[in-house]
């Protein structure tokens, strides 16, 4: 806290409890910190840390979620003097909410009322707090939409939320929160559900609004890279307690608490792999240093050869559910994965990276192209032979809570591939399963458990064990660590890298996270609108990107280093057009230019 300044918000000894089945559960405990006018304070923590509870308490919205502020003061400096929000009556709170404190939430897709127009939702707060006429409120709403740089603001007012993209909706929500020029903006994970380019736009928008209006920002996030880009001061929380607090440079450069150090160690930073030839496990606090490190694969020939892979999904409509259009999910994609190598496919949501992985396994049926695994044509196999081919290639899915059968014991689920493929029988099966549990560093006592008894990271280890059971040559990891907390994510990433070094497995690593991709991959392919726009060695793509899309994607990635602030105040990216095309649409073939040996850049223009 800079000296001599009255804080805008001062939280003292906050304690919030929730009514649990067996007595109260503590949401946050003894949390104290303050926010100065015009300052951005980031509250950072993993799931269950109580970071959102803190921000909801400040709005007294926590009560609507079944929580209760049992102790502490929440002082907020209003014009007429300081108010303790914890004790304020409902009328006072209503006058503060949306007027003096604005708030934005995580899910832009559900933050707006789907059956009201944008105008109605933007003006009702203004009319209530400011007593504006319908005319005046409309004018102010237009002004706000322009301020958050929404194109065609007049038209937007008449539209309904579902007609707007996710990024635009979040801009509307921000405009709504800014309507009455609040002195504090609370942003609760405002970019978590967004793609990286839209995240950059929203972060830069919040930065600009903060400078223009002089409001303070309380920014809740789990993402250290975002913290590094926007924070003035940082509050680290863990399991309902405040762990550490300090200026952002201080926290990143000299973290005092072990938890903060561990958290920072687990975060991959874009650019830190510069000059390294092979993937490298993250150095986690408290783990032994001599792990197996993957090396650059010796030239041992291709394992998976994908050429001209195209997958289209029909859009059904009409009386007899005929095909009325096609989603061009994967469009003429070709690449090779060598033995023992990791190829990462990166791109934003809807770019076709997941469909590409699923098409290789034929979990989605490709429209055309060839997929050769060990020279065997996968797309030509009948159902029975395809099942056999799966013994060589396995998949790990994104959602650890949905990828295990909730009604089956874990050992049974890991044993299934062994018995189905005749790889083991009798007592041998249990031994092999036990070995697999060892391999993914899970205690053998977990074997007889059911999935709901495990945490997300543990479940993902089971999913990996199940994939490993058949000793596959290729594992397709579809956003396999995206749903995990950062420290757990680091452990699972390290496990995958170890397995590769030890078992010589090839990975197709599908991810939206550039920093993670940089850490784990030998080669990188960037996907955009169904096509592979650029592919090459990790260093080639990450350090000298050639395609315009790769460049803009990289420029949008927040770096977990406050000394390298790349998120400016005015970032704008081109929105991604719809991948739906009419029947009979002829897509041009993908043509590549080889800018360096093995570094291909798409030269086909998008229509």
């Amino acid at each position: 806290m800079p000296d001599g300044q009255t804080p805008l918000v001062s939280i003292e000894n906050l304690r919030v409890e929730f009514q649990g089945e067996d007595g109260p559960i503590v949401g946050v405990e003894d949390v104290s910190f303050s926010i100065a006018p015009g300052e951005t304070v980031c509250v950072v923590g993993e799931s269950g840390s109580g970071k959102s509870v803190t921000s909801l308490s400040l709005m007294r919205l926590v009560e609507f979620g079944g929580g209760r502020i049992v102790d502490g003061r929440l002082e907020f400096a209003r014009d007429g003097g300081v108010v303790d929000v914890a004790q304020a009556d409902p009328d006072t709170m209503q006058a503060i909410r949306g007027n003096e404190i604005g708030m934005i939430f995580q899910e832009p897709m559900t933050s707006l009322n789907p059956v009201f127009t944008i105008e109605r939702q933007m003006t009702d707060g203004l009319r209530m707090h400011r007593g504006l006429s319908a005319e005046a409120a409309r004018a102010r709403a237009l002004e706000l939409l322009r301020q958050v740089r929404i194109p065609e603001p007049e038209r937007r007012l008449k539209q309904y939320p579902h007609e707007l993209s996710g990024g635009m909706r979040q801009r509307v929500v921000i405009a709504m929160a800014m309507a009455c020029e609040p002195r504090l903006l609370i942003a609760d994970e405002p970019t978590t559900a967004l793609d990286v380019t839209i995240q950059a736009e929203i972060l830069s928008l919040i930065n600009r609004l903060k400078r223009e209006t002089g409001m303070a920002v309380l920014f809740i996030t789990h993402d250290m890279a975002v913290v590094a880009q926007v924070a003035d001061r940082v509050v680290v929380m863990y399991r309902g307690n405040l762990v550490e607090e300090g200026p952002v440079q201080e926290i990143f450069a000299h973290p005092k608490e072990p938890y903060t150090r561990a958290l920072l160690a687990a975060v991959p930073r874009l650019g830190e792999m510069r000059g390294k030839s092979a993937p490298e496990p993250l150095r986690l606090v408290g783990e032994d240093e001599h792990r197996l490190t993957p090396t650059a694969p010796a030239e041992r020939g291709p394992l998976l050869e994908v050429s001209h892979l195209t997958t289209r999904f029909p859009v059904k409509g009409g009386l007899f559910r005929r095909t009325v259009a096609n989603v061009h999910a994967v469009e003429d994609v070709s690449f090779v994965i060598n033995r023992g190598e990791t190829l990462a496919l990166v791109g934003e949501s809807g770019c076709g990276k997941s469909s590409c992985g699923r098409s290789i396994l034929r979990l989605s049926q490709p429209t055309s192209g060839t997929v050769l695994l060990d020279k065997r044509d996968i797309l030509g196999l009948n159902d029975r032979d395809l099942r056999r081919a799966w013994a060589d290639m396995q998949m790990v899915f994104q959602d650890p809570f949905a990828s295990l059968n909730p009604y089956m014991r874990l050992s049974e689920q890991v044993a299934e591939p062994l018995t189905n493929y005749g790889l083991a029988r009798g007592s041998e099966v249990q031994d092999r399963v036990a070995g697999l549990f060892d391999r993914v560093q899970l205690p053998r006592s977990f074997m007889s458990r059911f999935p709901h008894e495990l945490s997300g990271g543990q479940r993902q280890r089971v999913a990996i064990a199940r994939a490993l059971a058949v000793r596959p040559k290729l594992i397709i990891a579809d956003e396999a660590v995206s749903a995990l907390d950062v420290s757990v994510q680091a452990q699972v990433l390290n496990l995958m890298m170890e397995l590769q070094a030890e078992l010589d497995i090839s990975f197709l690593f599908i991810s939206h996270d550039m920093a993670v991709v940089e850490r784990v991959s030998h080669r990188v392919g960037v996907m955009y609108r169904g096509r592979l726009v650029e592919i090459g060695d990790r260093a080639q793509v990450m350090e000298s990107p050639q395609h315009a899309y790769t460049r803009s994607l990289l420029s949008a990635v927040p770096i977990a280093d406050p000394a390298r602030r790349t998120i400016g105040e005015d970032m704008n990216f081109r929105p991604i057009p719809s991948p739906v095309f009419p029947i009979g649409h002829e897509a041009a073939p993908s043509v590549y230019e080889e800018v360096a040996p093995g570094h291909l850049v798409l030269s086909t223009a998008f229509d």
Partner: protein
Amino acid sequence: MKLPAAFRTSKGLIGTGLVIAILLVAVLAPMLIPADWATKMDMRARLSPPTLAHPLGTDQLGRDLLYRVLLGTQTSIFIAGAAVLMSIVIGLPLGLISGYAGGTTDNVLMRLVDTLLSFPALLLALTISAVLGPNLHNTVIAIGIAFTPFLARIIRGEALRVAQMPYVEAARTAGNSDSRLILRHILPNIMPAIIVQSTISLAFAILAEAGLSFLGLGTQPPDASWGLMIQASRDYLDRAPWTALVPGAAVALTVLGLNMFGDALRDALDPRSKGAS
């Protein structure tokens, strides 16, 4: 073992208690009460209000309502249970195949099911019963057929949802055959929905049986069921309202118990209520 939280509520406890009590009556009453107690006519006590000799009163023929209601339990429960079982036996494979196979099979089957859903279930049951000729077994068939489209729809929706779960795809790549996939991975995961739906259907079937019998198109004398007892009471409502109230209360208690039990079951089996860490 600790009872799931949903069953520790008063609703769950009352529901479970009622269901157990009614099942006990259905099984034990015919063993413990001689059948002729319910048919013995006491001509001096016709339409008698509740007395010490007849705690729940008597009907127009002087038969004891308590015994009749207790003995009628088995008939009503049997009809409802058999009808629901029948609708599951037909609806489960239909719904599973439709949801799992998708495509044309699904389109054709669901178009048919949707059309059948345009027929009010009671009307369908009444028509089938009238065409087949009303008796106890045809009542089961009529209610069973009438309830099938509804169950098939629900099972199909569940199968469709579960078939798209990553764990089913993972199980597929783990080398499971279609039949193993359906039996080991899809079926167990739609079981909770089927169980909950069956409980609710059972409640509806009790009501439907009562309705059918009330109209004379369900159970026929000498079989005794609650609906039949209410039908018999219609001409004596003024003088002896208890002749309607006693079997009516039996229906209400049973259906209430099943509904409460079903609600608790649904809450207990809701994945959101499971301790996801």
